[in-house]
């Protein structure tokens, strides 16, 4: 029941916002954000109590892993929702707000359904819901970005569909037309007896397909374009959680395939993709020119790390990957939101055009620097801890060389990000930019997100370790 509510809230909000204007729209948007967050909390509580909740004849099912993703999606959605009115006028009609909530809905659906096919549909739906969000500014560049986004992600997800069909095929072959043959719960139960060769084949398709959505190199090419051209709240959602949803699909499938083929097969492919992502990201982060693209490439980097974590496996690797997704979601969405403000103030997304940020925008500049430090994986922020966990898994599970390579590439990316942060944050401000006063209310969500990052880095909130443990356990019951 609670799951239906969780999904209904954004859907209803989207529907209302199609019609609502003015103050009503503001109220609807605000309520939608708050209720979604509340529903996510309720789901988390329910899962913590009952291990999993189901609805609609088991079509919707949330276990600890789903709850983890739901919490992430709704945290970032709340952050983005709070920032959105700065970027897009609320209450003037238009497609932006309905689509924003629809986008949230599709992501929530993707992580709360128990049906592999429906998940595929939902993930395809995330693309569809967000294409016009990317093209919100309707500039030439935004148009180009949204075209490539639509094309590449559609093709990628179609490839994932091949994998889904193959999984279904082997399932049907072995057990006949079982009513819930495409459910995670069923697949996990039956996996040890499924044909390993077909599952291997299927996994390749699934990996390429959902890897496209997760922004893993070399399927990441849509990502810098779309993330840099989308309005800040949309970039935050896409970078923060949409990629994570893609990786979530890979993670689920890997758990199934591992049961049939053993760990090594999937891990090898994932290590390859993870390292490729890190390498590509490192190369593009070395001397970035556009800060929104820089943030996008950094997403490739962090998804690469999470991918490595999944590949390395074990409680450290999986837990690290999930925690990394969460930390990255927080840090990256904060950065994208701030980048929206910076772009509004400087009128350009070029790094060269921005200087003296700390002097010009005292809060935004400082928060930007702090969030960049967090993004670079420094303590006391959570990404440090999750990276340590991932690499610990690497060394522990016998992927020493891969882990070492990954560490080296992270250093390169670090150097590039630091240089860009220096260029933007310090130096003499451009003459045309006046010092801006910033309302303190606007900074609250961002401060809260950064505080949460410190918490995941230094002292885990009560229940976090347990939630992480349950989420990992959900993969291999």
């Amino acid at each position, binding site marked *: 029941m609670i799951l239906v509510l969780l999904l209904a809230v954004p859907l209803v909000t989207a529907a209302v916002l199609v019609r609502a204007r003015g103050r009503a729209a503001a109220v609807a948007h605000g309520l939608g954000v708050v209720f979604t967050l509340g529903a996510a909390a309720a789901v988390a509580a329910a899962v913590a109590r009952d291990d999993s909740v189901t609805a609609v004849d088991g079509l919707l099912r949330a276990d600890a892993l789903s709850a983890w993703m739901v919490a992430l999606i709704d945290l970032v959605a709340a952050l983005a929702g709070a920032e959105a009115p700065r970027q897009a006028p609320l209450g003037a009609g238009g497609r932006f707000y309905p689509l924003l909530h629809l986008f949230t809905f599709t992501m929530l659906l993707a992580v709360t359904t128990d049906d592999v096919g429906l998940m595929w549909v939902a993930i395809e739906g995330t693309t569809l819901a967000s294409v016009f969000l990317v093209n919100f500014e309707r500039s030439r560049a935004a148009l180009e970005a949204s075209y*490539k986004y639509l094309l*590449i992600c559609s093709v990628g997800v179609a490839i994932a569909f091949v994998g889904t069909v193959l999984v279904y095929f082997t399932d049907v072959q072995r057990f006949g037309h079982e009513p819930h043959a495409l459910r995670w719960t069923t697949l996990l139960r039956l996996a040890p007896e499924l044909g390993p060769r077909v599952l291997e084949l299927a996994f390749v398709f699934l990996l390429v397909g959902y890897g496209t959505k997760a922004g893993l190199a070399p399927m990441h*090419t849509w990502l810098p374009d779309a993330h840099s051209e989308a309005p800040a709240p949309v970039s935050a959602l896409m970078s923060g959680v949409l990629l994570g949803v893609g990786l979530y699909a890979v993670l689920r499938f890997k758990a199934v395939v591992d049961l049939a083929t053993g760990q090594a097969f999937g891990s090898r492919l994932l290590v390859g993709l993870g390292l490729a992502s890190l390498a590509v990201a490192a190369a593009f982060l070395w001397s970035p020119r556009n800060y929104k693209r820089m943030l996008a490439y950094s997403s490739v980097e962090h998804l690469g790390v999470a991918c490595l974590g999944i590949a390395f496996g074990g409680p450290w690797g999986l837990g690290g990957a999930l925690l990394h997704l969460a930390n990255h979601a927080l840090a990256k969405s904060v950065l994208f939101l701030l980048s929206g403000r910076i772009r509004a103030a400087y009128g350009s997304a070029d790094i060269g055009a921005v200087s003296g940020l700390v002097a010009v925008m005292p809060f935004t500049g400082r928060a930007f620097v702090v969030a960049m430090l967090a993004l670079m994986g420094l303590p006391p922020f959570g990404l440090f801890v999750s990276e340590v*966990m991932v*690499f*610990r898994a690497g*060394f522990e599970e016998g992927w020493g060389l891969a*882990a070492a390579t990954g560490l080296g590439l992270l250093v390169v990316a670090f150097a590039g990000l630091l240089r860009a942060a220096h260029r933007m944050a*310090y130096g003499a401000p451009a003459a045309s930019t006046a010092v801006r006063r910033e309302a303190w209310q606007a900074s609250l969500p961002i401060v809260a997100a950064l505080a949460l990052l410190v918490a995941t880095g230094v002292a885990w909130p009560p229940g976090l*370790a347990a939630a992480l443990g349950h989420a990992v356990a959900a993969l291999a019951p």
Partner: protein
Amino acid sequence: MSATVTAAAGAALGLVAAAAGVAGVLGVEWSLRVPWLVPPGGLELTLDPLGGFFLALVGTTAVPASIHAGGQRGERGGAAFLAFVAAMAAVPLAGNAITFLLAWELMSVASYVLVLGARDSRESLSAAWVYFVMTHAGLACLLAAMLLLGSWTDSLRFADWSAAPSALSPGAGTLAFVLLALGFGAKAGVIPLHVWLPMAHPAAPSHVSALMSGAMVKLGIYGLLRAGLDWLGPGPAWWGVAVMLAGTASALVGVLYALVDRDLKRVLAFSTIENVGIVLVAVGACMVFRASGLEALAVLSLAAGLYHALNHAAFKALLFLGAGAVVRAAGTRNLESMGGLVRRMPWTAAAFLTGSVAIAALPPLNGFVSEWLTFQALLQMLEIPRPELNLVFALGIAGLALTGGLAVACFVRAFGIVFLALPRSDQAAAAREAGIAPRAAMGLLAAACVALGLAPTLVLPALAGVASAVLGTPALDAPADWLTVTVSGRFGGLSTVAVAAALGGALLLPLAALALARAPGRRPGETWGCGRILQTARMEYTGTAFAHPFQRIFDFFYRPVKRLDIDVHAESRFFVRRLAYENRPRPIFEEWLYRPALEALHRAAHRARALQSGSANVYLLYIVAALLVMLVLA
């Protein structure tokens, strides 16, 4: 945060750390576990003698640095300063890898923020960049090594590592040692990982430089000791040889660059590299002795190294604080614009002179004691029955001796050019003495230099205790009576108290004799200059000129870029209008090692940019290619 609050808090923190550290050195054991803090694994702090020593070192350096900071109005970064001190105090206490890495990186972050301090200049930005990237690369090495160790021993607790060094295969141990040595060496400023040091130290405010140089760099040595002696147990002799050679190279390269640099704080930074090198020579000797089964000598070497680390903390912090006062007063870090400050800033001058004498290892101050001890340990190398190791030791000894001589020259230059003769700029001529807080801080440190110099009989047994605790050997029977330090039976003895007393007496003797003889007085006159009159500052020997013989002698090392521009008068070439002469040493490590590496990286990154060509078809092709490649692999 106001400067006073920062100072008080920092000093309090330092005092607590120092007290705890001394307790640890004296054998007090203490540990603390907080499972919910510092995930995953939990905060774990343990105090043991080695950790206690470095904790005390951090604490005692932090006290004067904080006091000095209290005198700096308008200096930013109070919170970062406190975080820096706290993180440094946490590093030697850390009892598991996660705690250690967290404290270690927090220390780096805090010091990075402090280096960034005057962030409006490009110079300090690039210094901060180089510093942070180097330190992060070092962290990556440490992380890899610690996680490797963790996976081999199935634990991230240091206690478990120390317990199971013999379980590691030699190859594994070596891999871990190399990685750890790289990581810790980068922090300690070992050649060729030192490049951040001469950039970051000048960029930071002086009390921060003092802390970085006095304490933070030492924590690199701490890590190396932990790695080489504790976690990885007695390694093969070549580890020690490698450390020793790296130390010798660092000492020589450091002092050679210190000798020719014109930036006062860079001179001190390079000298830090030198002193770290000296410590590492002792540490390396300790490792070789231990590998050869000579435990008493290993203890002596290690104690000497620790002593030098402690001494360096005292005199380098003193020198940095002094340099800070000078730079503030003269408005420049350039040696060639200073001069004559001994009359404008007598207290600072006296303190700086004390530090210079100490760092030049001249008796009876502290630098001499530790260098003497190091020599005593090295000179007994004949106990090792392997000629090739003996040769390494001989080279180490010679390197150390040359370093000592060059350090004397370096600090003659540093003190002489800055403080003596006539001021070379208007601002130096109008310099004002530092305030009461900086003077107090410098006074404390100068007193520490003297005390550590005169009291080896008290300090050495404690350090030998630390060393024997680390090495797991029974404590040596008292190597010192109240007056004289004796090493290795009757091999050598030293009594700085006696020397100091004798020097004092010998100073008084001629004074008294001359007074009794009623020697004629003195009268002021101008400096003689072959009959010319009117002495001006432009006639003085410059720092560059002073270093010139060294630049000629070590030409093969400096590889200077020479440039001579003579702008002659249009009508006759004998009338020179302007003459520009440049003779800048070439930073060979930057030019031959780092620049090519960075350029290669840059080129590679640039090439890789072609990947994102803008064509949707190419992007789709990537997907197909990835699919096909993975199908083939599967």
